[in-house]
């Protein structure tokens, strides 16, 4: 029998960026907040001996233990979904701070276009431009409405950046100036300017200088140590939930984190939620934590899994196209090109997770789509995140994959390649969705989430177009040989792509086509807030976490309002 604990104001399921932001905002406001985290506690001291590519980058030291929980995957409904037995395509977070500890820190805003994509597209190109089967829709909030929340998140992180001439309007400049530049970044800047584009430095959570945020938390200056993406920062220089927001929540005296606490159920009475059930994974004891407000802050996968398991909201049915929970799962695509340099050698082994320069000339509707067979686009960038030697063995095409020639070329080109990369926006499609797997179970006997996903025709067309642009930039930079990324075939769960999964519990203005309103309050349970990229109505062409953070601040405001007035907030 599960033991029932005293009721609290708010319980969050998971303590990453979203759980941490809610805790800081709500505990400071006087609410009793409990954070349930399935993993362990950790802090900056734990990363001092962390410059170990094998352990952290390849054996996934900081990430989800898939022996306990994973998901199943298939490319389409006709296939049998099979478990993702090891991490690959994306690297799910676990332990205090979630994936916010091992992220890169590239902190872009989405663009005004993203939030009103449907209206803007139809207005300019007519109704036929959005093809059948794509659930492209406005988000129920505009960029201008979300701007103050972006501002709060960027202040919490101390983002280092500079004005991007093509982005939405900012109410304040970035809290800290951009990071240092490098020779390869300078080459990109010059080439893109020569081509008539507008380069700017990637907004970064690896800070260019020491900074104190609105909670009085200190974030230090980045050392460009190159063990950043997939690693924790031993300097406390990469903004993460553990240094930026969680200590503020703790200081209030109103916050308690329970580690090794794996939530197994959201308790729903058909009208409201009353709390959550969890298991202490070390003792095996079960508890019920009643709460006035439950916030799902467990990342896209589990946010959606909980809604499906507890039957909250109408499940998406791909046969009829009806229902919303699990619909609009999106990912991203990676157009780009690699330049091989015979004459020049670069310090590519140095760097930082968010060190780079970008252009937005091919983002959203910044270029004319009249004659193009896709909408949207993506950021195009050069980054210098620190190439490590096991994972980086670039060789010109036709080099064998092993043996003498492989050895020679992979050594030679390790410091002689520069990649122009892009993150292509991803649009919801009727056949791409999340539901519960009928066969496979997690360590607690609960069904695994099942992902049905493949790249769409829109993705393939976008990939081709942006890849061409990236290759032109690479050539302009003076590469001896430029190798464009291949055309898209089937999505594979195996190689790493991005941890930019979105959708499944999307926000919107209409309960018939969304799961949560623009405060991330569930349409079918007014005291349930579903916070994270699960709320994205589509995925934009830049990294998601600035928007995730902004939506978490928005949800925090919603919860404060709800605790005062109750009822639906819209």
């Amino acid at each position, binding site marked *: 029998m599960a033991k029932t604990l005293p009721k609290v104001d708010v319980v969050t399921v998971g303590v990453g960026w979203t759980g941490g932001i809610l805790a800081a905002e709500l505990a400071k406001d006087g609410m009793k907040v409990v954070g349930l985290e399935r993993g362990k506690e950790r802090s900056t001291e734990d990363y001092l001996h962390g*410059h170990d590519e094998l352990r952290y980058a390849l054996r996934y030291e900081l990430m989800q233990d898939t022996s306990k929980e994973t998901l199943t995957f298939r490319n389409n409904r006709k296939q*049998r979904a*099979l478990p993702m037995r090891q991490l690959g395509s994306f690297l799910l977070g676990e332990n205090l701070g979630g994936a916010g500890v091992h992220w890169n820190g590239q902190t872009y805003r989405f663009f005004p276009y993203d939030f009103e994509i449907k209206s803007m597209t139809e207005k300019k190109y007519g109704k036929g431009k959005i093809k059948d089967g794509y659930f492209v829709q406005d988000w129920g909030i505009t960029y201008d409405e979300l701007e103050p929340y972006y501002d709060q998140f960027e202040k919490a992180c101390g983002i280092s950046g500079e004005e991007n001439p093509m982005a939405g309007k900012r109410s304040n400049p970035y809290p800290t100036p951009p990071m*240092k530049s490098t020779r390869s970044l300078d080459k990109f800047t010059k080439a893109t300017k020569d081509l008539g584009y507008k380069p700017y430095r990637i907004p970064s959570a690896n800070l260019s200088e020491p900074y104190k945020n609105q909670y009085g938390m200190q974030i230090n200056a980045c050392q460009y140590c190159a063990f950043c993406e997939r690693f924790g920062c031993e300097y406390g220089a990469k903004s993460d939930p553990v240094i930026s927001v969680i200590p503020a929540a703790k200081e209030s005296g109103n916050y308690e984190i329970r580690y090794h606490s794996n939530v197994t159920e959201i308790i729903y009475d058909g009208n409201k939620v009353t709390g959550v059930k969890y298991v202490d994974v070390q003792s095996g004891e079960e508890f019920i934590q009643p709460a006035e407000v439950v916030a799902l802050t467990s990342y896209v996968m589990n946010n959606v899994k909980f809604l499906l398991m507890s039957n909250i909201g109408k499940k998406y049915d791909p046969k009829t196209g009806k229902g919303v929970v699990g619909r609009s799962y999106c990912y991203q695509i990676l157009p780009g090109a690699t330049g091989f340099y015979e004459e020049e050698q670069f310090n590519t*082994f*140095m760097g930082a997770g968010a060190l780079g320069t970008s252009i937005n000339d091919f983002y959203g509707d910044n270029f004319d789509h009249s004659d193009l067979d896709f909408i949207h686009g993506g950021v195009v960038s050069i980054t210098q995140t620190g190439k490590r*030697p096991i994972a980086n063995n670039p060789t010109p095409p036709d080099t064998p994959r092993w043996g*003498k020639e492989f050895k020679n070329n992979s*050594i030679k080109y*390790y410091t002689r390649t520069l990649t122009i990369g892009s993150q292509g926006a991803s649009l919801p499609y009727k056949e791409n969705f999340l539901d519960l797997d009928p066969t496979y179970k997690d360590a607690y006997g609960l069904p695994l989430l099942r992902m049905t996903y493949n790249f769409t025709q829109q993705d393939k067309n976008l990939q081709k177009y942006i890849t061409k642009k990236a290759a032109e930039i690479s050539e302009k930079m003076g590469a001896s040989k430029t190798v464009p990324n291949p055309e898209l075939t089937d999505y594979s769960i195996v190689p790493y792509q991005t941890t930019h999964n979105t959708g499944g519990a999307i926000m919107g203005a209409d309960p018939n086509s969304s799961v949560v309103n623009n405060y991330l309050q569930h349409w079918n349970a007014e005291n349930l807030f579903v916070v994270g990229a699960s709320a994205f109505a589509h995925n934009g062409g830049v990294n998601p976490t600035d928007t995730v953070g902004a939506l978490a601040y928005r949800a925090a405001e919603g919860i404060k309002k709800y605790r005062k007035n109750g009822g639906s907030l819209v």
Partner: protein
Amino acid sequence: MSEQEKYSRRDFLKKSGYAAGGVVGGGLIASLITMQVMEDDPKTKNSQTNGGSEDQFNDAFMFFTNRDDFRVLASSCERIFPEDENGPGAIKLGVPFFIDHQLAGPWGNNTKEYMQGPFYKGEPTQGYQSRMNRGEIFRVGIKKLKEKAQSDYEKSFQELSAEEQDKILTAFENDDVKISGTTSAEFFEMMRAATIEGVYADPMYSGNRNMEGWKMKQFPGAQMSYIGKIESDKFVDIEPQSLHSMLNK
């Protein structure tokens, strides 16, 4: 690359008995190196790449149980990453011991991976679906390499020429060999990946001896900070450093 480093690399090759630019990495030579690693007294032999005459206490088996299997692995790794004018190959870098130790640990036992059934053969896009763990896959894979050498050439794998070994490995890579419970391509990919890991992982894992893997690639290892160098216009050659040396920093 600095002149000095070029020199020491050539020097190294001379000392190790294989002329720079000469034919290295032949199967016979690879098996000779294997014999050195395996059969000579480690106290006197391994010293070139281990940088001293200290005992290498961890040059011993944690996973393998017989020398013959280990030699087949060692010869295969050497074909994947052979000694050449750039520097040492997999064997001198300690890669076979790296793999042995990895197979004995969480990676070889798939500790952090979902290993519950039912098991089905999946699409390539669905990844690892074998009911065997990596240790078991290496066992059956190496057994198959041995059988294939016998059936194709009536010799042991280590006795084959480099070309013959490559032919067999290529057949594995192309999935032309049947193995129950896994595929030859899956085994080959795993061995290829583990070989590269052993070349470049921190030397504490028993590969990348004396950081020679890093030196070849001009990767400086575990440095604390590049803040003073990140803006440099030129390529910066830095003496590598391992995690061991960060212990007291």
